């Protein structure tokens, strides 16, 4: 088995990496800045991006109560909250081949029932047909994700405390700053005890990257989540041994939260310790009417850091078009070959949206990923990654979406878009079929889209 006999990697933790991380950690402690009060517990959506962040399938009442959701029709019903984000798209190929989603509709619906004593029913029902080419309603699907949410707020020692217990739909989960898991749909269980700025949190997720895996965590957070220590275990049924991790992460928002530096360090406690590091910086701002965001990420995974001790491609069974609003740079792209190579990457992301006239807005989103895989000295392995890159060696990918959006109703999110892109969400014939490709990027496409939110 690949790597089973490799006693060690010549890569040691670079001297400056822990130093950098320590600096960020201490800075976060010394220069606290108030975080935006989050309406959703354990809200791990990325707020440093212009990519659309969808609703979360819990605490829908609180989310729809936010000022920017004032247009929602279902926000003021006493014990029921309802929201739907709808999109219809027709995609044409300029070069390459379609992904499965090319003439689709998607109604991403959210419904919540709330009791007066701390129980919510949450239902996220995705209704979609990926391809009008299949025949009328031949491929239409309804995929529900349901959660029961128990919660209680109380005072303890003069401070606010809250307990949340939730399952099974955990929506999209990011652990730490995304070194292990980032924006990943998960089903399982979640428990959270918050006390002032501190929290103790537990996730259990089934079927994360591989069909036979489970993931569990225990997280201790401080400063409202700016600092977090985590112990996690990634285990496999009838497979390789469990990988246990200890993990430290820190976020440092600066300048009125326009700028953020984040770092995360993780250690795989296998027989020979394996390290990984994530550094992120983001700047998001407005220049007049121009909204823009730029970000940089550095990832480094020592060989063998990934949870699976072997070569096995991670797969996803949940890929809907709204996942285009995620970056390619994700641990998913690295963990399949982690047993064979040391990997590191530099990722640049940039987005802008500029209002023009008559309701038109120009927009652009780009991501450039420069990744490297290196095998330990003295060994000779060549493999092809699921994305089709020959490893070891460098691999580069550039993803873009750009075009025009027309907002016919001022102040409302309903829009018609003409999008030029090389990024399409990939899926199997049925969406639940596992695929090791998140995005199809081998062509160029033009897509006309109608999007509305009610």
């Amino acid at each position: 088995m690949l790597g089973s006999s490799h006693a060690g990697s010549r890569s040691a933790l670079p001297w400056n990496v822990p130093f950098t991380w320590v600096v960020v950690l201490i800075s976060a402690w010394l220069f606290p800045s108030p975080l935006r009060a989050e309406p959703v517990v354990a809200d791990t959506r990325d707020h440093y991006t212009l990519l659309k962040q969808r609703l979360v399938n819990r605490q829908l009442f609180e989310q729809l109560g936010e000022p920017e959701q004032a247009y929602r029709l279902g926000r003021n019903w006493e014990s029921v909250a309802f929201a739907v984000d709808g999109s219809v798209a027709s995609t044409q190929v300029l070069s390459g081949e379609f992904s499965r989603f090319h003439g689709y509709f998607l109604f991403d619906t959210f419904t919540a029932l709330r009791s007066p004593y701390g129980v919510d029913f949450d239902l996220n029902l995705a209704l979609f047909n990926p391809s009008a080419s299949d025949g009328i309603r031949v491929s239409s699907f309804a995929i529900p994700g349901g959660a029961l949410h128990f919660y209680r707020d109380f005072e303890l020692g003069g401070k606010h405390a809250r307990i949340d217990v939730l399952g099974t739909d955990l929506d999209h989960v990011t652990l730490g700053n995304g070194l292990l898991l980032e924006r990943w749909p998960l089903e399982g269980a979640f428990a959270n005890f918050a006390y002032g700025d501190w929290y103790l949190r537990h996730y259990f997720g089934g079927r994360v990257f591989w069909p036979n895996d489970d993931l569990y965590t225990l997280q201790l957070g401080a400063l409202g989540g700016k600092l977090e220590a985590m112990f996690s275990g990634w285990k496999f049924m009838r497979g390789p041994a469990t990988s246990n991790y200890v993990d430290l992460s820190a976020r440092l928002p600066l300048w009125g939260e326009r700028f953020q530096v984040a770092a995360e360090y993780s250690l795989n406690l296998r027989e020979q310790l394996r390290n990984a590091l994530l550094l992120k910086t983001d700047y998001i701002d407005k220049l007049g009417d121009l909204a823009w965001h730029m970000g940089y990420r550095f990832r480094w995974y020592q060989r063998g850091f990934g949870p699976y001790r072997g070569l096995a491609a991670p797969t996803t069974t949940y890929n809907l078009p709204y996942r285009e609003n995620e970056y390619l740079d994700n641990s998913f792209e690295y963990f399949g070959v982690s047993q064979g190579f040391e990997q590191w990457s530099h990722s640049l992301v940039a987005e802008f949206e500029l209002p023009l006239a008559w309701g038109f807005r120009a927009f652009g989103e780009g991501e450039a990923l420069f990744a490297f895989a290196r095998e330990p000295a003295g060994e000779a392995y060549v493999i092809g990654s699921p994305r089709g890159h020959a490893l070891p060696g460098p691999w580069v990918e550039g993803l873009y979406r750009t075009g025009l959006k027309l907002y016919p109703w001022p102040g409302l999110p309903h829009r018609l878009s003409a999008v030029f892109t090389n990024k399409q969400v990939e899926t199997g014939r049925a969406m639940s079929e596992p695929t090791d490709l998140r995005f199809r990027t081998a062509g160029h496409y033009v897509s006309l889209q109608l999007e509305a939110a009610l």
Partner: protein
Amino acid sequence: MSGSTRRGRIALYLGLAACSGGCTAPEVSPRDLRVDYQLPERLPEPAREAELRYAVLWMSSTPRRFWIGPQGRLAPGSTHFEVRFEGLPELDFDALAPLEQLHLSSQTQFAVGGDQVITELVADVYRPRLVVYEDDNGNRVPDVSDDGERIVEPVIAIDSEWATGIAALRDPKAAVTALSLENAEAYYATNEAFSRFAYVTGTGRLELTSPTTIALAPGAGIGPVAPFCARSLISGFGATKLSLVVDARLDLVTICGVELADCESRRLTSSDSDAGLDGGDVESLEFDAGDFGAGTLGASTPGFEQCRYNGSLEAWTRWNYETECDQCQCLTRTVGRSLVVSRAAVPDGWPCGKRVAYCEPEALPLYSLATSCDLEPDASTRDAR
């Protein structure tokens, strides 16, 4: 600390971290493959002044050309020797003949119902031949005839055409990187490292196999190495060929019908006695190599016999496999030859019911191969055991 100083330091730390692992990743060179070969037990004694050497031969078809390498000397009395396949000799891979296809498989994740789909991947390969020869003139290379067609020095051992062997991939990187990660892991479980060479097995359909000692076959009497092609490609199975010899006392048309063209009427019994078949005639009708096509590769493959009866008729059939080649493309087919007599007048020496057991009647034509019955090895096969 001022804001600008703090920002500058953060940028510095990020910059240092960015290239902390280096900003380049070197290409991987294919590894050598070390192969253990086993000599046949009985080797002819080389001429006193000659030494035994091995050579790996790479051949083109038209015009015939040999490339040699690696090669080396065999230690006296050795039973095993190791050959190190490092790279290709200076040659044009496209000129090698025959190029074959190594079948790889790769699983994709887009299967309906969660099953994985096996995608057939093929890679161009060439299987060089390894010979052990007597270096008569001491020039340390196998000498090629003037017409370039053959090795003229005595070849005393050669790798088998049909057993596990070594193949060179035209583009090993392309082949390996086309595999799924799971199959790549399986590949490295056997190959241990990325290499231009791989252990392969199979006829017609080459597949990867685990490293093993490769046993060489005796080369004495094989004549020139590969007079027509370096390897024979079994490219398929042809239709069964059947010929009948029907006793002249029986109605040929009734037995053979109109479909069976290769049907011959011959006197298998004496004219004045129902039981008077001449044993010599029977022997003359037994098969020899010529019955299966002289010069074909499969003439020595084991055969088997079957006796069946149906009503008043009885048939003794011998089956064998025949491989016919045109250049390097070969077709294998089953060849049968039946003698049909009356049950009431079987000749002396008739093997059915004695040496060859009867296969009970079933709903098949008399001369068809009944696979439901045990197949008796034929006499030549038994003798060889």
